[in-house]
């Protein structure tokens, strides 16, 4: 039972990150290969304050208060998205993909290089964020917080896409040149969406940090970003439910394949290649829906 509960919790968390990525990838057409960075940032936003609270040092940062963790995650994710977005969004196509990858790698190396927070080995914290009336130590409550968060973000995205901003974003994805000629500051709109997307993933990171209590730079590995992209694209871009479906497919695949072999990345990779090769029009055709 607890196995399935954990699986469901992890599913919700990944789905939230996929929802975040879908905002810019699915609705906006911006293919970011670096969104795992925000998951990492969110997780460390829990880990670092908790670490200081447990072991001292940096008193102004030491806390297990969940709202503080969330605030830190939102601020740092938002800033990272803003600063990297300012540069990335001046580029297009594969340049954009590579630059988002590069910045994500930068975040990876940054966390690896900080010895105090475990560097390569990661950070173990044996406490969770404290939120009034809720104990995240209880797996059932952890699940419900994750599940309700997922519902919240899916609803939020639904609202956004029905709004003026959402329409503009879709227009930009469809025909950027036209949108510029219609008078839209496309760069600014993309930047706003980019920051929003990063913040949503950062929130998912907070949940992830709490769920795993082992926070490592591996969360920022670009293979994780690739997995997120896989979820968003296969699940159905530019739809509210799509990221959830994609996350479900990914989790199921991961579970099935890893029960067959610990080397499950190999059949997963082959599957990915097969889908790319044999899907009519390629996966990128799925992107233009």
């Amino acid at each position, binding site marked *: 039972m607890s196995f399935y509960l954990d699986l469901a919790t992890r599913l919700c968390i990944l789905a939230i990150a996929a929802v975040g990525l879908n905002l810019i990838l699915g609705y906006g057409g911006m*293919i970011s*290969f670096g969104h795992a960075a925000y998951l990492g940032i969110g997780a460390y936003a829990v880990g670092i304050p908790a670490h200081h609270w447990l072991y001292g040092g940096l008193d102004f940062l030491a806390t297990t208060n969940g709202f503080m963790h969330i605030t830190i995650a939102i601020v740092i994710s938002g800033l990272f998205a803003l600063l*990297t977005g300012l*540069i990335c969004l*001046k*580029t297009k*196509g*594969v*340049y954009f*993909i*590579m*630059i988002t*990858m*590069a*910045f994500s*790698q*930068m975040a990876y*190396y*940054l966390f*690896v*290089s*900080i*010895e*105090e927070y475990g560097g390569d080995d990661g950070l173990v914290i044996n406490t969770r964020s404290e939120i009034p009336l809720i104990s995240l130590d209880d797996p059932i409550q952890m699940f419900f917080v994750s599940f309700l968060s997922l519902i919240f973000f899916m609803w939020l995205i639904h609202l956004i896409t029905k709004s003026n901003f959402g329409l503009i974003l879709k227009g930009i994805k469809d025909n950027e040149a036209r949108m510029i000629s219609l008078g839209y500051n496309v760069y600014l709109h993309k930047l706003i969406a980019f920051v929003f997307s990063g913040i949503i993933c950062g929130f998912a990171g907070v949940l992830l940090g709490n769920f795993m209590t082992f926070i490592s730079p591996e969360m920022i*590995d*670009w*293979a994780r970003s*690739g997995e997120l*992209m*896989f979820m968003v*694209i296969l699940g159905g871009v530019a739809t509210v439910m799509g990221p959830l479906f994609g996350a479900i497919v990914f989790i199921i695949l991961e579970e099935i394949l890893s029960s067959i072999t610990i*080397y499950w*990345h*190999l059949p*997963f*990779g*082959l*599957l*990915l*290649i097969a889908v*790319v*090769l044999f899907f009519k029009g*390629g*996966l*990128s055709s799925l*992107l233009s829906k």
Partner: protein
Amino acid sequence: MDYTLLLIQVLNGLQLGVLLFLVASGLTLVFGILDFVNLAHGSIYMLGAFICASLTYILESYLLAVVFSLPIIGIIGYVFELFLARPLYTRDHLDHVLGTFGAILVIDTAAHLIWGPAGIAIPLPDYLDGQISIAENIEIPTFRLLIIAVGLTAAFGLLWLVNFTRLGMLIRAGASNRTMVAALGINIRSLFAIVFALGATLAGLAGMLIAPITEASLGMGNNIIITAFVVIIVGGIGSVKGAFVAALLIGLIDTLGRAFLDDLFKIFMSTTAAENSAPAISSMSIYLIMALILSFKPKGLFPPRLR
């Protein structure tokens, strides 16, 4: 100021730069000419290291291993092109990215299965393992000089090939006008296969050169590929010259940053602050440089000419 240390670090930076060039040149050629984004290029670099390691043990000679490994990597590159790259040429870059990402997963896991999780060290023959005095009191490991020499030779060889030979002319022509070149009766398929295999061989060579120093290890491909992308973005996609300049620049900045940034920081910071912040900042240095250069030259230092 310890000039000996500075010189050694400069040479280290050159070494890194030269290796980066070997990897990045194949990447930029394939992207510039075949318009194909190959994330798995780093995995080929890793395969070069591992295959060379295995052959070194079998043949009991590092040099022989390199000699035999190069064509093997070339063949691997050719096969890769045939089965994965070629079907994807007509597709969007996103498909390239996702397809080669899948390839990385496959190759990395296969390498894990074949060679195990630990790295494999490559022993060097004695005559390569020593030091050379290049000046009074300054001794440089022989092998590092060899790497730099090999890398520079490869760089000039490549530049000569692209700019002064018929093959190079076809490559450049194929880059700017594929259909025209095909109409002239040149077999574009073979041309592309050759370019791809060449790029793969250079990456494999880089792996073979670095492995005696750092071991052949599973993560090495993934580490280098992003840096190689940074190099070609900074250098300008499709430009071998750009890749050369950018690779040396990045190699030097990264090496010198890691070596001297804390000393630099100590000038205006406390020792503990310097020692805590320097590793973090130096690890970010090449990305910060990339960001800086992109803000002035969004298409890199030597941008591709319009097709």
